[in-house]
């Protein structure tokens, strides 16, 4: 694969077996990366097909059944197979031990097991396409999911198994962060990405089992008819929604927290500035993790839950917005008086600020109960969560992918093409989803295969936007894959970053570091440290380079 001259993790061992049975977190991370990108491609194709059908009202390309299966698959694949493992299991697996100065994660075998569990879960989920695709939506609401004749069981079993993969990653990361930090790296000298992964792992560990038991019960309900979710059997479908959202709301933060971690890294690195309010950002990650467990009922304002419940959940919901807001302000303040450069990762950072702000503000709107009553299950919600999930998480993921790409492969991608792809994605995204805010507030319900003529113009623009997005991702796929084979050799520290993963070679050697690294400076000490051409320059050594105020 790589033709680098020195020994590194990519070429140290050869043959397919050395990959399939590897215990190296970097190789496992790469296998995950390959898997999640495949899922992203699949989910993306489903999305394009959905948008294609919605170009005009009425039946154009698919039947209603096919359409319902498409949006279910789009949701399930994107959420369970792509976005949840994307940053922690793929990128996180690769960078976490490097950032901590460790040789590996705490439990390498568990790490490999989690990958294969993911694969098994994915096969289950994809089998459901062959076995008569599910048409329940990724939320599996009862009693629809217990009565429909499609293959709900294989999909829910898939999600159940994927849950274990997610739990094992979380267990692994928690133990790693607690026990494997390099000498000198105290909790408040860790990179903020590590804090974000820590908070993410807490949610994974605490919330996923509840989804597990819920899906298991759904399977039992379908097979044996135990009757706890089925109103005809004396059960309660609203209870299912509580159980489901107890996981699935925190899951939103499993997705976005690591994205925020990436943004914290990027904004400091590309502003060459000490991160502003380090502790506040770290605590806000934990705060989000905690509060995210207390707000799930805001998905259920119209579900028939008690009014008291709606009040409590609406109240708590607003408090989850505050730590996110704090982070935004801190990133902004980090840019102040920085020395900003605009490589692709920084462009993604700016795009993140723009898109996530919109996602956040519309989240506040939806948190107010009376507005949510109108907006619930309309395209407004669809647009809102795409702005947070795609505009937030996916954009941050892409930023991180470009940022660590040279470290992963030892190759640079084509910066010009990266900027072109970024522009396509940024504009295409807004065209696709900003229109949907208006569709939603005008009353267009989600999961509609057919719609009234009055909504046609906006649907049309939205579909055009999705094509732009598709073109952007195609360009990206081209230059990234090209760079693996033909890209120019990357320096060890192309961005001049100070955290530990940049102190080893690109790509890293098999056990990450020649000697156990010891923390000498904090990850964001850009006021006294500078890296030029892989060389660390200390302020105390360079008297003539006093900080020039720009």
């Amino acid at each position, binding site marked *: 694969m790589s033709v680098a001259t020195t020994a590194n993790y990519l070429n140290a061992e050869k043959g397919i077996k050395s990959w399939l049975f590897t215990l190296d977190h970097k190789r496992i991370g790469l296998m995950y990366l390959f898997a999640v990108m495949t899922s992203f491609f699949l989910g993306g194709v489903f999305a394009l097909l959905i948008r294609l059908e919605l170009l005009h009202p009425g039946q154009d390309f698919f039947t209603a059944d096919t359409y319902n299966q498409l949006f279910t698959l789009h949701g399930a694949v994107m959420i369970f197979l792509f976005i949840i493992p994307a940053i922690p299991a793929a990128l996180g697996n690769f960078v976490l031990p490097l950032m901590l100065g460790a040789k590996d994660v705490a439990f390498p075998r568990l790490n490999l097991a989690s990958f294969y569990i993911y694969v098994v879960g994915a096969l289950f989920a994809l089998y459901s396409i062959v076995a008569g695709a599910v048409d329940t939506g990724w939320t599996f609401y009862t009693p629809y999911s217990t009565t429909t004749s499609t293959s709900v069981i294989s999909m829910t079993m898939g999600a159940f198994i994927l849950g274990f993969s997610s739990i094992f990653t979380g267990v692994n990361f928690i133990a790693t962060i607690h026990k494997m930090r390099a000498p000198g790296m105290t909790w408040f000298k860790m990179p903020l990405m590590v804090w974000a992964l820590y908070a993410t792992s807490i949610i994974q560990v605490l919330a996923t089992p509840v989804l597990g038991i819920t899906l298991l019960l759904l399977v039992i309900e379908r097979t044996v008819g135990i009757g706890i979710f089925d*109103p005809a059997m004396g059960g309660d479908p609203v209870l299912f929604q509580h159980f489901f959202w107890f996981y699935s709301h925190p899951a939103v933060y499993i997705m976005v927290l690591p994205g925020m971690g990436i943004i914290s890294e990027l904004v400091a690195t590309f502003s060459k500035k000490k991160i502003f309010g380090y502790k506040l950002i770290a605590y806000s990650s934990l705060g989000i993790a905690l509060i995210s467990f207390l707000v799930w009922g805001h998905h259920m304002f119209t579900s028939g839950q008690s009014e008291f419940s709606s009040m409590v959940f609406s109240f708590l919901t607003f408090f989850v917005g505050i730590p996110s807001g704090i982070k935004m302000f801190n990133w902004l303040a980090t840019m*102040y008086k920085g020395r900003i450069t605009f490589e692709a990762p920084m462009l993604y950072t700016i795009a993140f600020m723009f898109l996530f702000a919109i996602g956040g503000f519309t989240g506040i709107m939806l948190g107010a109960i*009376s507005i949510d009553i109108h907006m619930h299950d309309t395209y407004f919600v669809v647009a809102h969560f795409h702005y947070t999930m795609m505009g937030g998480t996916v954009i941050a993921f892409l930023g991180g992918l470009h940022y660590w790409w040279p470290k992963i492969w030892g190759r640079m991608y084509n910066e010009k093409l990266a900027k072109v792809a970024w522009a396509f994605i940024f504009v295409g995204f807004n065209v696709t989803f900003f229109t949907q805010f208006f569709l939603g507030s005008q009353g267009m319900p989600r999961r509609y295969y057919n719609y009234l003529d009055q909504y046609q113009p906006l649907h049309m623009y939205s579909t055009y936007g999705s094509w732009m997005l598709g073109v952007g991702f195609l360009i990206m796929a081209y230059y990234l894959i090209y760079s693996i084979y033909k890209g120019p050799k990357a320096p060890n520290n192309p961005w001049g970053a100070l955290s530990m993963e940049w102190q080893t070679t690109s790509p890293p050697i098999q056990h990450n570091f020649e000697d156990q690294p010891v923390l000498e400076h904090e990850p964001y000490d850009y006021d006294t440290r500078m890296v030029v051409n892989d060389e660390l320059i200390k302020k105390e050594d360079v008297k003539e380079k006093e900080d020039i105020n720009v």
Partner: protein
Amino acid sequence: MDPNGSLIFPSQVSTIAPEVDALFDFILYLSIIFFILVVGGTFYFAWKYRKKGEDTFTKDLSHNNMLEVLWTVIPTILVFIIFVWGFKSYMKMTIPPDTSMEIKVTGQKWFWTFNYAEGATTTNELVVPVNQPVRLLMSSNDVIHSFYVPNFRTKMDVLPNRYTQLWFEATETGEYNLFCTEYCGKGHSEMIGKVKVLARADYDAWLAGAGNAGANMKPEEFGAKLYKDKACFTCHSIDGSPLVGPSFKGIFGRTEKMTDGSEITADENYIRESILEPQAKVVQGFQPIMPTYQGVLKDEEIDALIAYFKTLK
């Protein structure tokens, strides 16, 4: 979009709508201010502090307690205001006034049925008087549906084996869209009805006539009307193409193979049974998912439908 509405919302037709929109506008303006502050700030800083010339060390600005407290406290106060405001209007839209009239709503795959206290029954068309609080007592016969009228800004899930309620007071006459917003399967996007808001006198006249709607029509015409009104078309075409159920084209006198292997010729008895007990005999190749119309259709209505089917050659 709605010609009477704004860019964002469809026109306001209930007493609660202006309140919802006002809160929305409040948050919208706040959001625009903060958006300019944060995202505008991002662009401004990005341009102002872009790298000019050589690499340098940057300033050690790592925290500022005053600022950090400010941008924690101010948003907290603002969201608290939003919560109280939102909750107050929510309480208003939750508790129906004592003067409300009551209509029973049943959702099922994939149409709405409305039962009036006066005995009238309509399908997919809710007729209400203007300036009159109306309380809907809702339940579902199969899966969860959701009752949503964008112009009223109200929505409530309709659950099987549970009652939920929703109330509104329409402020302008006209016809408004009624959507199902909880995904309920194949016909979900066809589960669209109308809310007809009438002036009081028109409403009373309609109510008086609603009981004997087919009185002065030929049976086959009445049947054709019922085919439309009762939303049979969601599942049964009249052009021969199979949808969820078999087509009605040429149904009368047609011999079909059933799921149990027997063959049945569709006559009056069979059609009648299929409407009242749809699961008794199901045509091969179709799912046994049709709901019963027991209590929804009256005898003379079934007869009218049969008369209509006879015309579909």
